[in-house]
């Protein structure tokens, strides 16, 4: 029973006491208020009339300003808990005072005002206390049961009122209310005090008003929330007025007390049922935003019904019934949850103001409107129904608009600075001075940094040609590359000077830069330079100038014929020149050099292949993918060859005979094509590939692809992969939960293999979750899912709760609905044992003990897992499993990971079990 309750109510270890006490407090104060409310409504309508209600609301609005100022300072001074205790005691005292006064119109007016103020303040103070005590994730789970306490309080209060009115007059209800306030105050003392902890946001209303508007401007979400609170306040007030005016006209005054008692009792009973069985389910299933939209939807329905039936009492009962049964249950939870994502200091500052001043202000305005309608005789059911329709439809519309700003809050809270970076640097005069000063630094690192910064900011014209006087070779090389363009002229004489530089690399760079801009600069003379590197470059340009087939030019022939280190240097230099300025005419030279089986030439050749785009190089380039050095250039070269290259890559990927060291790099190469076809190939690979590391590369490639190009991906197919990985994560966790206790009891001989096994499973578990998040990123390409995955593993409880809520919202409309539930199980703050228990519906089998876990592991598709498990079994496991080890094979072939073990096995003369 306890487990059932724990699952239904989802109260975790350590939360029970707090939840029970919070529930009891809310029960008490709502019970007390309901009794008070019953008495006040009956007395007001008996002695005064419904048409006077607007005056009450107007008075309340004025009083709210004063009360809000007092409340904020009060809470800051004493803490949230103590403030609520004092308010309850004050409520009891004030109610007794009003009871003792003769029930004149003025006293009843004061009673109505008093109870309405109490209702606002007490509830606001309670939820401020709860908002501090629970995280967003806890709120989603626990506000349901807590609010149920409040609803139960309303039911009990209303029921008690009904029973009491059988034997006593209405005014006696005030004493019952007083008693309930006092008892609640006592219960509240069992909660921990937060006095002294309230963050230093001690503001008065004078400060709150400008602060409030500042916050609204700074936070669009807050603005929308405030408008929604205003709309809902207005709508329920009009609904309340409509209900009371229709009832007052339909019923004798003497029966009103009993009627209201019964009506509230019924409404609160429905509210309790909603609270206990529907609220949590609806919030979880539909999400917070949709749950918030249920009440206005019913009001819309009721308003339409009232309009169509010209104010039939059943229609107004529908409206009031929806309000009465949902406002303090489902709607209350949803509203509080909508406040939770805001930072605590903002909540503290703004919520009190909203709950007191703003709500009362809206009530006053609405009341004034009702008064005007009453004065002109337009306060009948039909005009009021129209008003409700307008307010409720606005409410629904704005609720729908709230989803994006709601998610934005979590995005902002979860986002890491590294996720976006600081953006492109835009230089102003002051910062340009800093950079130019750095350019003239003698420290080559600083000068180079300045050059790179200007290159990145696309401000290379700020690099003066005088940089070519720098002492450092590295600076000269980079500067020549960057400023040696046709658009500038001033650098040419300084570069010509560098043709005599003692460094070969600088002379090569000078030749390259000058030749590129058409400066003849004694190129023929450079053919006889002492440096083979210079000669190689010069040969390129001389042949290029001469025209004709480069392969037949004497200078190129000489370079191709050179041997030894000098020859390689010259040939590398020739390739370098080709990579910067080559074209298809150089293909033959390039092919000859690449076929010389020299890794350095091949690497330099890859860059040149990009310029040539000759498909004869495709097999060579694909083969070259196995070498990391220069792989990026190789990939660019392959992509440059177009669809033919993509065909070849697809064939290579599908061919199991492809060299494994090439195969593993094919997916990322395919992703570089940035095309729909590439995305389709990668998706297929993800679904069908046997090798785990190739699948992972396909996933990473797909991730890069969707990030940088508008390719379409079938979300359902991706989400199925998410589901698979999440289930795998939980499956491994279930095995670990069974294994971990065994390791602590294992004999020393079994420790090494046991630790290896657990280490391997832990890594696989983490990887499965990582893959699930990467796949989710593919589906939600504009979201920063990576930050969420980091937050889920954070030790910060609030950050984890925000991540969970964000994931929940993100997966609300998933094509594969299970992934939302799976993420909830995976990411929620739970002990592993409980997490495994909640995975039951997703896992075909959960090992009950060590033996079952080992049996399952011996059948794993990863033969490394099987091998390590087998060793652990031999060292520690049960006899029956030891005998089974020798029978393990894949397709009749014994696993290599078990060879030595099986030899040992056979040496012992142990036979296998069939």
């Amino acid at each position: 029973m306890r487990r059932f309750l724990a699952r239904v109510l989802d109260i975790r270890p350590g939360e029970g006491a707090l939840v029970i006490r919070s529930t009891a407090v809310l029960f008490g104060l709502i019970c007390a208020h309901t009794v008070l409310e019953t008495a006040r409504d009956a007395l007001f309508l008996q002695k005064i009339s419904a048409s006077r209600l607007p005056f009450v609301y107007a008075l309340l609005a004025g009083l709210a300003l004063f009360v809000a100022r007092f409340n904020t300072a009060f809470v800051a001074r004493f803490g949230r808990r103590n403030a609520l205790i004092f308010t309850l005691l004050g409520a009891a005292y004030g109610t007794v005072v009003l009871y003792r006064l003769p029930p004149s119109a003025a006293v009843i007016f004061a009673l109505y005002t008093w109870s309405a103020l109490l209702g606002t303040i007490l509830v606001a103070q309670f939820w401020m206390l709860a908002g501090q005590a629970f995280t967003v994730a806890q709120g989603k789970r626990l506000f349901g049961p807590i609010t149920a306490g409040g609803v139960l309080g309303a039911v009990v209060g209303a029921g008690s009122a009904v029973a009491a009115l059988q034997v006593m007059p209405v005014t006696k209800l005030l004493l019952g209310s007083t008693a309930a306030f006092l008892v609640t105050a006592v219960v509240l003392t069992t909660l921990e005090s937060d006095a002294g902890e309230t963050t230093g946001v001690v503001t008065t209303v004078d400060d709150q008003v400008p602060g409030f508007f500042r916050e609204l401007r700074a936070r669009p979400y807050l603005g929308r929330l405030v408008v929604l609170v205003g709309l809902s306040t207005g709508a329920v007030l009009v609904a309340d007025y409509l209900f009371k005016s229709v009832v007052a006209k339909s019923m004798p005054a003497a029966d009103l007390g009993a009627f209201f008692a019964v009506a509230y009792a019924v409404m609160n009973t429905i509210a309790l049922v909603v609270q206990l069985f529907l609220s949590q389910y609806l919030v979880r299933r539909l999400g917070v935003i949709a749950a918030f939209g249920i009440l206005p939807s019913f009001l819309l329905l009721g308003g339409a019904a009232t309009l169509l039936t010209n104010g039939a009492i059943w229609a107004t009962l529908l409206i009031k019934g929806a309000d009465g049964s949902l406002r303090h249950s489902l709607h209350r939870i949803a509203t509080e949850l909508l406040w939770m994502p805001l930072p605590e200091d903002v909540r503290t500052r703004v919520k009190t103001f909203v709950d007191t001043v703003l709500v009362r202000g809206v009530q006053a305005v609405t009341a004034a409107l009702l008064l005007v309608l009453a004065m002109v005789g337009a306060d009948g059911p039909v005009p009021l129904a129209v008003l409700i329709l307008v307010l409720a439809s606005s409410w629904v519309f704005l609720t729908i608009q709230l989803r994006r700003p709601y998610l934005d809050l979590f995005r902002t809270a979860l986002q890491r600075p590294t996720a976006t970076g600081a953006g492109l640097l835009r230089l102003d005069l002051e910062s340009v001075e800093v950079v130019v000063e750095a350019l003239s630094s003698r420290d080559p690192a600083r000068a180079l940094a300045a050059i790179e910064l200007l290159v990145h900011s696309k401000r290379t014209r700020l690099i003066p040609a005088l940089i070519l006087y720098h002492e450092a070779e590295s600076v000269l090389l980079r500067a020549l590359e960057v400023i040696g363009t046709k658009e500038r002229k001033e650098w040419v004489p300084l570069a010509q000077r560098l043709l005599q530089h003692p460094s070969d690399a600088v002379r090569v760079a000078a030749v390259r830069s000058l030749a590129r801009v058409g400066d003849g600069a004694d190129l023929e003379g450079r053919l006889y330079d002492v440096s083979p590197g210079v000669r190689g470059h010069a040969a390129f340009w001389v042949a290029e100038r001469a025209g004709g087939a480069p392969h037949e030019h004497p200078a190129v022939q000489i370079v191709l014929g050179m041997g030894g280190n000098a020859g390689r240097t010259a040939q590398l230099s020739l390739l370098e020149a080709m990579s910067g300025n080559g074209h298809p005419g150089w293909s033959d030279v390039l092919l000859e050099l690449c076929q010389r089986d020299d890794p350095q030439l091949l690497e330099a050749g890859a860059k040149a292949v990009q310029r040539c785009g000759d498909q004869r190089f495709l097999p060579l380039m694909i083969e070259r993918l196995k070498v990391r050095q220069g792989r990026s250039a190789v990939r660019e070269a392959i992509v440059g060859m177009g669809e033919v290259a993509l065909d070849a890559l697809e064939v290579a990927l599908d061919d199991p005979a492809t060299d494994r060291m090439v195969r593993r790099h094919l997916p990322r190469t395919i992703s570089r094509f940035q095309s729909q076809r590439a995305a389709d190939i990668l998706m297929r690979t993800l679904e069908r590939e046997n090798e785990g590391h190739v699948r992972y590369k396909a996933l990473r490639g797909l991730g890069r692809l969707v990030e940088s190009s508008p390719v379409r991906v079938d979300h359902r197919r991706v989400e199925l992969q998410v589901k698979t990985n999440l289930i795998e994560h939980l499956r491994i966790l279930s095995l670990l939960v069974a294994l971990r206790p065994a390791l602590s009891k294992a004999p020393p001989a079994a420790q090494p293999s046991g630790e290896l096994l657990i280490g391997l499973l832990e890594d696989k578990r983490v990887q499965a979750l990582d893959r699930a998040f990467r796949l989710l990123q593919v589906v939600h390409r504009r979201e920063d899912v990576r930050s969420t995955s980091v937050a889920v593993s954070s030790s910060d409880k609030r950050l984890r709760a925000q991540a969970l809520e964000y994931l929940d919202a993100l997966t609300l409309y998933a094509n594969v609905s299970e992934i939302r539930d799976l993420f909830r199980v995976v990411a929620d703050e739970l002990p592993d044992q409980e997490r495994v228990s909640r995975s039951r519906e997703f896992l075909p089998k959960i090992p009950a003990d060590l033996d079952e876990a080992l049996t399952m592991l011996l059948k794993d598709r990863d033969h490394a897992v099987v091998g390590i498990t087998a060793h652990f079994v031999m060292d520690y496991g049960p006899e029956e499993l030891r005998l089974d080890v020798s029978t393990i094979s894949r397709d009749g072939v014994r696993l290599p990971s078990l060879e030595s073990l099986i030899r040992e096995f056979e040496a012992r003369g142990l036979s296998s079990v069939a």
Partner: protein
Amino acid sequence: MSLETALSLRVEHELFIRSFFEVRPPDRMVQQLSASLRDYYAPAGTVLYERGQPSERLYFVISGEVQLEAPDSEPWVLKDLSLLGALDAGQGRPYSRTARAVSDVAALTMAFREYVDLMEDHFDFTKSSMESNARNLHDRCLELAPDGVFAPATPSDATPPNPEPLELLAKLRVLRQSDLCQRAPVQALVSLAIHGEGELWEPGQVLLERGAPNPYLRLVAHGRLEATRDQPVVQAAFGPGSLLLGCSALGYAEAQYRVVAATPSLTVRVLKEDFYDVMEDHFPLAGSAFSYFGRENERTRTLLAEQARGRARFNPG
């Protein structure tokens, strides 16, 4: 702060970041670092962090001098363009020394966790940095020639190694117990072990000749291997658990050495390409490699400090 000042500050940050790393960082990484790094100013005498505190933050020193102090140990003095905290954070331990500003210090600081994320996002840069670090570390170790360049060899037992081909679990154990892979995730080691190969060496057999290219990393499983080089003269031995030729192997500088088996020995070799490919998919393997550098760095600093003390004693003038 005015917009102009903020912009100038950002320019200074970017200039510093671009000049800090020996390997040119990609532009995107510079932007991301720029967004994460926060200014930090410590007047002389300030303690940046205490020994024993969790090593959660890194400090990139722009200017100034910082002393790293530990009981019974020579203080280390670090100046401009130094990185504080990486040694400890990389090894997953609390700060092992107290960092105190000797002069006014201007620095940039960020969370270690964010730095690791960035390195993972820019793997090619990380790999190049790793090679550069390894080369520089090896060059510094050469100051300890002839016999302090590498860590002392662990003795091996006298029994000859099993001549049978190594199976997966045995290779896995060798990798797990090695200096280089102590902190590596098991899955990464499994991936390496699957493609790694065992090699048996007879006494006198040459593993590496000077100048010969070497595409492998070798981890010693059993026996004793001896390495020599000239200029400076180095004599070193490698036993079970060691990475043959240490940092020089990762820095592509091992061509300067000749390695011979002194006893019947067993090594597990892994292609460097495989090592880095696996590292790209299992980034904590990089953390294990950096942790190895950290330990080597500490060993080297300690020995160099002792050497300097010894010289000072010998030549007090």
